[in-house]
Protein backbone atom coordinates (compact mmCIF):
# COMPACT_ATOMS: atom_id res chain seq x y z
CA UNK A 1 0.00 0.00 0.00
CA UNK A 2 2.68 2.40 1.09
CA UNK A 3 4.82 1.48 -1.89
CA UNK A 4 1.95 2.02 -4.23
CA UNK A 5 1.22 5.41 -2.74
CA UNK A 6 4.81 6.51 -3.08
CA UNK A 7 4.99 5.43 -6.70
CA UNK A 8 1.79 7.20 -7.54
CA UNK A 9 3.01 10.35 -5.79
CA UNK A 10 6.22 10.18 -7.79
CA UNK A 11 4.26 9.73 -10.96
CA UNK A 12 2.18 12.81 -10.12
CA UNK A 13 5.32 14.77 -9.48
CA UNK A 14 6.88 13.76 -12.79
CA UNK A 15 3.70 14.69 -14.59
CA UNK A 16 3.60 18.05 -12.86
CA UNK A 17 7.18 18.87 -13.80
CA UNK A 18 6.73 17.81 -17.40
CA UNK A 19 3.57 19.90 -17.80
CA UNK A 20 5.39 22.87 -16.29
CA UNK A 21 8.18 22.47 -18.82
CA UNK A 22 5.65 22.22 -21.63
CA UNK A 23 3.94 25.44 -20.54
CA UNK A 24 7.25 27.31 -20.32
CA UNK A 25 8.37 26.08 -23.74
CA UNK A 26 5.10 26.95 -25.43
CA UNK A 27 4.98 30.42 -23.86
CA UNK A 28 8.57 31.18 -24.77
CA UNK A 29 8.24 30.04 -28.35
CA UNK A 30 5.09 32.07 -28.76
CA UNK A 31 5.91 35.32 -26.91
CA UNK A 32 9.72 35.36 -26.96
CA UNK A 33 12.33 34.49 -24.36
CA UNK A 34 12.60 38.04 -23.03
CA UNK A 35 8.89 38.42 -22.25
CA UNK A 36 8.53 35.29 -20.18
CA UNK A 37 10.14 35.06 -16.77
CA UNK A 38 9.38 31.65 -15.34
CA UNK A 39 10.37 30.20 -12.01
CA UNK A 40 9.51 26.93 -10.38
CA UNK A 41 9.37 26.36 -6.67
CA UNK A 42 8.37 22.95 -5.28
CA UNK A 43 6.98 22.03 -8.68
CA UNK A 44 4.73 25.07 -8.74
CA UNK A 45 5.16 27.27 -11.79
CA UNK A 46 5.00 31.06 -11.63
CA UNK A 47 5.25 33.08 -14.81
CA UNK A 48 5.82 36.83 -14.80
CA UNK A 49 4.81 38.64 -17.96
CA UNK A 50 4.67 42.34 -18.94
CA UNK A 51 1.25 43.90 -18.59
CA UNK A 52 1.05 44.77 -22.31
CA UNK A 53 0.75 41.13 -23.38
CA UNK A 54 -1.25 39.83 -20.42
CA UNK A 55 -4.49 39.45 -22.37
CA UNK A 56 -2.74 37.63 -25.22
CA UNK A 57 -0.98 35.28 -22.81
CA UNK A 58 -4.24 34.53 -21.02
CA UNK A 59 -6.11 33.90 -24.23
CA UNK A 60 -3.33 31.63 -25.49
CA UNK A 61 -3.24 29.64 -22.25
CA UNK A 62 -7.00 29.22 -22.33
CA UNK A 63 -7.50 28.43 -26.01
CA UNK A 64 -4.44 26.33 -26.81
CA UNK A 65 -5.66 22.79 -27.29
CA UNK A 66 -2.75 21.18 -25.42
CA UNK A 67 -2.76 23.54 -22.42
CA UNK A 68 -6.44 24.48 -21.93
CA UNK A 69 -6.29 26.54 -18.73
CA UNK A 70 -10.01 27.06 -18.87
CA UNK A 71 -10.64 28.06 -15.24
CA UNK A 72 -9.52 31.30 -13.63
CA UNK A 73 -9.44 30.04 -10.05
CA UNK A 74 -8.54 33.41 -8.56
CA UNK A 75 -7.35 36.88 -9.45
CA UNK A 76 -5.95 39.13 -6.76
CA UNK A 77 -3.78 42.16 -6.19
CA UNK A 78 -0.59 42.76 -4.25
CA UNK A 79 1.09 45.94 -3.02
CA UNK A 80 4.90 45.65 -3.11
CA UNK A 81 5.27 49.20 -1.67
CA UNK A 82 8.12 50.09 -4.03
CA UNK A 83 7.82 53.01 -6.51
CA UNK A 84 8.61 50.89 -9.56
CA UNK A 85 6.42 47.82 -9.92
CA UNK A 86 4.34 48.89 -6.94
CA UNK A 87 1.19 46.90 -7.62
CA UNK A 88 0.93 43.39 -8.91
CA UNK A 89 -1.95 41.35 -10.22
CA UNK A 90 -1.86 37.59 -9.79
CA UNK A 91 -3.85 35.14 -11.88
CA UNK A 92 -4.25 31.59 -10.58
CA UNK A 93 -5.15 29.29 -13.44
CA UNK A 94 -6.43 25.74 -13.42
CA UNK A 95 -6.99 23.32 -16.21
CA UNK A 96 -10.06 21.13 -15.88
CA UNK A 97 -8.69 18.66 -18.43
CA UNK A 98 -5.09 18.16 -17.23
CA UNK A 99 -5.77 19.15 -13.58
CA UNK A 100 -2.76 21.39 -13.66
CA UNK A 101 -2.26 24.74 -11.94
CA UNK A 102 -0.04 27.68 -12.81
CA UNK A 103 0.29 31.20 -11.51
CA UNK A 104 0.62 34.28 -13.71
CA UNK A 105 1.92 37.60 -12.43
CA UNK A 106 2.14 41.07 -13.85
CA UNK A 107 3.18 44.41 -12.36
CA UNK A 108 2.12 48.04 -12.83
CA UNK A 109 3.73 51.31 -11.80
CA UNK A 110 2.64 53.44 -8.87
CA UNK A 111 1.75 56.53 -10.93
CA UNK A 112 -0.20 54.69 -13.56
CA UNK A 113 -1.80 51.58 -12.06
CA UNK A 114 -3.64 50.50 -15.19
CA UNK A 115 -3.70 47.30 -17.16
CA UNK A 116 -6.09 45.66 -19.61
CA UNK A 117 -8.94 43.53 -18.33
CA UNK A 118 -9.10 39.77 -18.79
CA UNK A 119 -12.85 39.65 -18.29
CA UNK A 120 -13.08 39.17 -22.05
CA UNK A 121 -11.17 35.89 -21.65
CA UNK A 122 -12.79 34.49 -18.49
CA UNK A 123 -16.14 36.04 -17.57
CA UNK A 124 -15.49 35.32 -13.90
CA UNK A 125 -12.69 37.91 -13.90
CA UNK A 126 -15.37 40.59 -13.83
CA UNK A 127 -16.01 40.44 -10.08
CA UNK A 128 -12.42 39.53 -9.20
CA UNK A 129 -11.21 42.65 -10.96
CA UNK A 130 -13.85 44.76 -9.26
CA UNK A 131 -12.62 43.51 -5.90
CA UNK A 132 -8.99 44.20 -6.82
CA UNK A 133 -9.97 47.69 -7.92
CA UNK A 134 -11.86 48.24 -4.67
CA UNK A 135 -9.00 47.13 -2.45
CA UNK A 136 -5.93 48.38 -4.38
CA UNK A 137 -7.18 51.01 -6.83
CA UNK A 138 -5.76 49.11 -9.81
CA UNK A 139 -7.72 50.15 -12.88
CA UNK A 140 -8.65 47.47 -15.39
CA UNK A 141 -9.07 49.15 -18.74
CA UNK A 142 -11.95 47.90 -20.83
CA UNK A 143 -13.75 46.37 -17.84
CA UNK A 144 -17.52 46.42 -18.50
CA UNK A 145 -18.54 47.61 -15.01
CA UNK A 146 -15.67 48.77 -12.80
CA UNK A 147 -17.52 49.70 -9.60
CA UNK A 148 -16.58 49.10 -5.98
CA UNK A 149 -17.32 45.64 -4.67
CA UNK A 150 -17.47 45.88 -0.86
CA UNK A 151 -16.99 49.45 0.26
CA UNK A 152 -19.58 52.20 -0.20
CA UNK A 153 -19.46 53.95 -3.56
CA UNK A 154 -18.61 57.32 -2.03
CA UNK A 155 -15.52 55.98 -0.23
CA UNK A 156 -12.36 57.49 -1.70
CA UNK A 157 -9.55 55.25 -0.49
CA UNK A 158 -8.26 51.76 -1.23
CA UNK A 159 -7.85 49.92 2.06
CA UNK A 160 -5.46 47.09 1.17
CA UNK A 161 -2.78 49.54 0.05
CA UNK A 162 0.10 49.49 2.47
CA UNK A 163 -0.13 53.23 3.16
CA UNK A 164 -3.75 52.98 4.35
CA UNK A 165 -3.95 53.07 8.17
CA UNK A 166 -5.45 50.02 9.86
CA UNK A 167 -8.18 51.99 11.63
CA UNK A 168 -9.07 53.93 8.50
CA UNK A 169 -9.18 57.64 7.85
CA UNK A 170 -11.49 59.40 10.33
CA UNK A 171 -14.60 60.76 8.71
CA UNK A 172 -14.14 58.89 5.45
CA UNK A 173 -16.99 56.50 6.26
CA UNK A 174 -19.81 58.54 7.79
CA UNK A 175 -22.13 57.06 10.42
CA UNK A 176 -25.81 57.90 10.82
CA UNK A 177 -26.59 60.51 13.48
CA UNK A 178 -27.42 59.21 16.93
Amino acid at each position, binding site marked *: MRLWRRTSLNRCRLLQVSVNQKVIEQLKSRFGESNIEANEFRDELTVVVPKEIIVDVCRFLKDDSTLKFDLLADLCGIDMYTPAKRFGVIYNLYSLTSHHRIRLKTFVEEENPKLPTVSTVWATANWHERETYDMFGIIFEGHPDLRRM*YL*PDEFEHHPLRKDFP*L*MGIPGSLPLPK*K
Partner: protein
Amino acid sequence: MGLEHALGDSFLTTQIDVAINWCRKNSLWPMPMGISCCAIEMMAFAGPRFDASRFGSEVFRFSPRQSDVMIVAGTTTYKMAKVVRKIYDQMPDPKWVIAMGACTSSGGMYRTYSVVQGIDQFLPVDLYVAGCPPRPDNLLNALILLQQKVQRGESRGNSPSYIGEAKFPPEADTPKGWRTSAPLAQNQPQPLPIIAG
Protein backbone atom coordinates in the same frame (compact mmCIF):
# COMPACT_ATOMS: atom_id res chain seq x y z
CA MET B 1 -61.24 32.18 38.61
CA GLY B 2 -58.26 34.47 38.45
CA LEU B 3 -58.39 37.91 39.96
CA GLU B 4 -62.07 37.83 40.92
CA HIS B 5 -61.45 34.74 42.93
CA ALA B 6 -58.44 36.21 44.69
CA LEU B 7 -59.96 39.59 45.41
CA GLY B 8 -63.58 38.70 46.14
CA ASP B 9 -65.62 41.88 46.51
CA SER B 10 -62.61 44.11 47.14
CA PHE B 11 -60.65 45.97 44.48
CA LEU B 12 -57.10 46.81 43.40
CA THR B 13 -55.60 50.22 42.54
CA THR B 14 -52.59 50.84 40.34
CA GLN B 15 -51.19 53.42 37.99
CA ILE B 16 -52.02 53.11 34.35
CA ASP B 17 -48.30 53.38 33.45
CA VAL B 18 -47.41 50.50 35.69
CA ALA B 19 -50.19 48.37 34.26
CA ILE B 20 -49.16 49.16 30.69
CA ASN B 21 -45.51 48.51 31.37
CA TRP B 22 -46.41 45.23 33.00
CA CYS B 23 -48.28 44.24 29.86
CA ARG B 24 -45.43 45.40 27.62
CA LYS B 25 -42.67 43.62 29.40
CA ASN B 26 -44.26 40.22 29.02
CA SER B 27 -44.58 40.39 25.29
CA LEU B 28 -41.44 41.98 23.90
CA TRP B 29 -41.39 41.10 20.22
CA PRO B 30 -37.82 41.02 18.95
CA MET B 31 -36.57 42.34 15.65
CA PRO B 32 -33.80 39.86 14.73
CA MET B 33 -31.00 42.03 13.34
CA GLY B 34 -28.78 39.01 12.69
CA ILE B 35 -25.73 40.28 10.83
CA SER B 36 -23.18 37.54 11.44
CA CYS B 37 -22.21 34.61 13.66
CA CYS B 38 -23.96 35.85 16.84
CA ALA B 39 -27.23 35.41 14.96
CA ILE B 40 -26.86 31.64 15.22
CA GLU B 41 -26.99 31.88 19.01
CA MET B 42 -29.90 34.27 18.69
CA MET B 43 -31.75 31.58 16.74
CA ALA B 44 -30.95 29.07 19.46
CA PHE B 45 -32.42 31.55 21.95
CA ALA B 46 -35.70 31.38 20.07
CA GLY B 47 -35.50 27.64 19.46
CA PRO B 48 -37.03 24.82 21.53
CA ARG B 49 -34.06 24.18 23.77
CA PHE B 50 -33.74 27.64 25.28
CA ASP B 51 -37.27 28.69 24.39
CA ALA B 52 -37.66 32.44 24.58
CA SER B 53 -41.42 31.97 24.61
CA ARG B 54 -41.18 31.25 28.33
CA PHE B 55 -40.60 35.00 28.62
CA GLY B 56 -43.01 36.13 25.94
CA SER B 57 -40.45 36.88 23.24
CA GLU B 58 -40.89 34.03 20.80
CA VAL B 59 -42.53 36.14 18.11
CA PHE B 60 -39.58 37.19 15.98
CA ARG B 61 -40.84 39.85 13.61
CA PHE B 62 -39.08 40.45 10.34
CA SER B 63 -40.95 43.72 9.98
CA PRO B 64 -39.54 46.48 12.19
CA ARG B 65 -42.98 48.07 12.39
CA GLN B 66 -44.28 45.20 14.49
CA SER B 67 -41.41 44.80 16.92
CA ASP B 68 -40.39 46.26 20.28
CA VAL B 69 -36.78 45.28 20.83
CA MET B 70 -34.05 45.09 18.25
CA ILE B 71 -31.42 42.42 18.96
CA VAL B 72 -28.36 43.53 17.01
CA ALA B 73 -26.39 40.30 16.69
CA GLY B 74 -23.23 40.51 14.67
CA THR B 75 -20.37 42.53 13.26
CA THR B 76 -21.77 45.89 12.20
CA THR B 77 -19.78 47.44 9.38
CA TYR B 78 -19.99 51.09 8.40
CA LYS B 79 -21.88 50.07 5.30
CA MET B 80 -24.41 48.10 7.35
CA ALA B 81 -24.75 50.83 10.00
CA LYS B 82 -27.00 52.87 7.74
CA VAL B 83 -29.31 49.90 7.29
CA VAL B 84 -29.42 49.13 11.02
CA ARG B 85 -30.24 52.75 11.79
CA LYS B 86 -32.95 52.83 9.14
CA ILE B 87 -34.60 49.73 10.55
CA TYR B 88 -34.34 51.15 14.05
CA ASP B 89 -36.02 54.36 12.88
CA GLN B 90 -38.89 52.34 11.43
CA MET B 91 -39.69 50.68 14.76
CA PRO B 92 -42.56 52.26 16.68
CA ASP B 93 -41.93 53.82 20.10
CA PRO B 94 -41.29 52.69 22.77
CA LYS B 95 -38.37 50.63 21.54
CA TRP B 96 -35.31 49.02 23.01
CA VAL B 97 -31.98 47.80 21.66
CA ILE B 98 -29.90 44.86 22.85
CA ALA B 99 -26.29 44.88 21.63
CA MET B 100 -25.47 41.19 21.50
CA GLY B 101 -21.85 40.10 21.45
CA ALA B 102 -18.42 41.68 21.51
CA CYS B 103 -18.54 42.95 17.93
CA THR B 104 -21.76 44.83 18.36
CA SER B 105 -20.79 46.26 21.74
CA SER B 106 -17.25 47.35 20.95
CA GLY B 107 -16.09 46.14 17.55
CA GLY B 108 -14.79 42.98 19.22
CA MET B 109 -11.81 41.38 17.58
CA TYR B 110 -12.35 43.44 14.42
CA ARG B 111 -10.31 46.49 15.30
CA THR B 112 -10.25 47.64 11.71
CA TYR B 113 -11.36 50.42 9.37
CA SER B 114 -14.56 48.79 8.19
CA VAL B 115 -16.21 47.80 11.49
CA VAL B 116 -18.04 50.26 13.73
CA GLN B 117 -16.33 50.14 17.13
CA GLY B 118 -19.57 49.79 19.08
CA ILE B 119 -23.09 50.39 17.78
CA ASP B 120 -23.71 52.94 20.53
CA GLN B 121 -21.99 55.40 18.20
CA PHE B 122 -25.19 55.60 16.19
CA LEU B 123 -27.91 53.87 18.26
CA PRO B 124 -29.11 54.27 21.85
CA VAL B 125 -28.34 50.88 23.38
CA ASP B 126 -30.23 49.53 26.41
CA LEU B 127 -28.25 46.40 27.13
CA TYR B 128 -24.84 45.06 26.20
CA VAL B 129 -24.31 41.30 26.25
CA ALA B 130 -20.70 40.15 26.58
CA GLY B 131 -19.40 37.07 24.80
CA CYS B 132 -18.17 35.92 21.43
CA PRO B 133 -20.78 34.69 20.87
CA PRO B 134 -22.81 35.01 24.08
CA ARG B 135 -24.56 31.81 25.05
CA PRO B 136 -28.31 31.84 24.47
CA ASP B 137 -28.90 31.74 28.21
CA ASN B 138 -26.87 34.93 28.48
CA LEU B 139 -29.23 36.50 25.99
CA LEU B 140 -32.17 35.22 28.03
CA ASN B 141 -30.61 36.91 31.02
CA ALA B 142 -30.45 40.10 28.97
CA LEU B 143 -34.11 39.72 28.14
CA ILE B 144 -35.02 39.36 31.80
CA LEU B 145 -32.98 42.45 32.69
CA LEU B 146 -34.67 44.28 29.85
CA GLN B 147 -38.06 43.30 31.26
CA GLN B 148 -37.06 44.90 34.55
CA LYS B 149 -36.11 48.05 32.66
CA VAL B 150 -39.40 48.04 30.81
CA GLN B 151 -41.26 47.67 34.09
CA ARG B 152 -39.38 50.71 35.40
CA GLY B 153 -40.40 52.60 32.29
CA GLU B 154 -36.86 53.15 30.97
CA SER B 155 -35.96 53.01 27.32
CA ARG B 156 -33.81 54.49 24.55
CA GLY B 157 -30.51 54.01 26.26
CA ASN B 158 -31.28 56.11 29.31
CA SER B 159 -29.34 53.87 31.62
CA PRO B 160 -27.55 51.01 29.93
CA SER B 161 -27.13 47.91 32.03
CA TYR B 162 -24.24 45.52 31.66
CA ILE B 163 -24.27 41.79 32.01
CA GLY B 164 -21.68 39.14 31.57
CA GLU B 165 -18.78 41.11 32.98
CA ALA B 166 -19.68 42.66 36.29
CA LYS B 167 -16.75 45.04 36.52
CA PHE B 168 -16.41 46.13 32.93
CA PRO B 169 -17.69 49.70 33.20
CA PRO B 170 -15.32 51.07 35.83
CA GLU B 171 -17.87 53.48 37.36
CA ALA B 172 -21.16 51.65 37.16
CA ASP B 173 -23.14 54.67 38.36
CA THR B 174 -21.98 56.89 35.50
CA PRO B 175 -23.08 54.91 32.48
CA LYS B 176 -22.96 57.80 29.98
CA GLY B 177 -19.71 58.42 28.23
CA TRP B 178 -17.77 55.53 29.72
CA ARG B 179 -16.89 54.16 26.32
CA THR B 180 -14.29 56.85 25.64
CA SER B 181 -10.67 56.05 25.06
CA ALA B 182 -9.65 56.97 28.62
CA PRO B 183 -10.53 53.70 30.38
CA LEU B 184 -9.12 51.75 27.46
CA ALA B 185 -5.85 53.65 27.67
CA GLN B 186 -5.57 52.78 31.34
CA ASN B 187 -5.72 49.13 30.47
CA GLN B 188 -2.71 49.36 28.17
CA PRO B 189 0.40 47.59 29.45
CA GLN B 190 2.57 50.05 31.35
CA PRO B 191 6.31 50.24 30.61
CA LEU B 192 8.37 48.26 33.05
CA PRO B 193 9.96 50.35 35.80
CA ILE B 194 13.69 50.71 35.42
CA ILE B 195 15.48 49.47 38.49
CA ALA B 196 18.72 51.30 39.08
CA GLY B 197 21.64 49.43 40.48
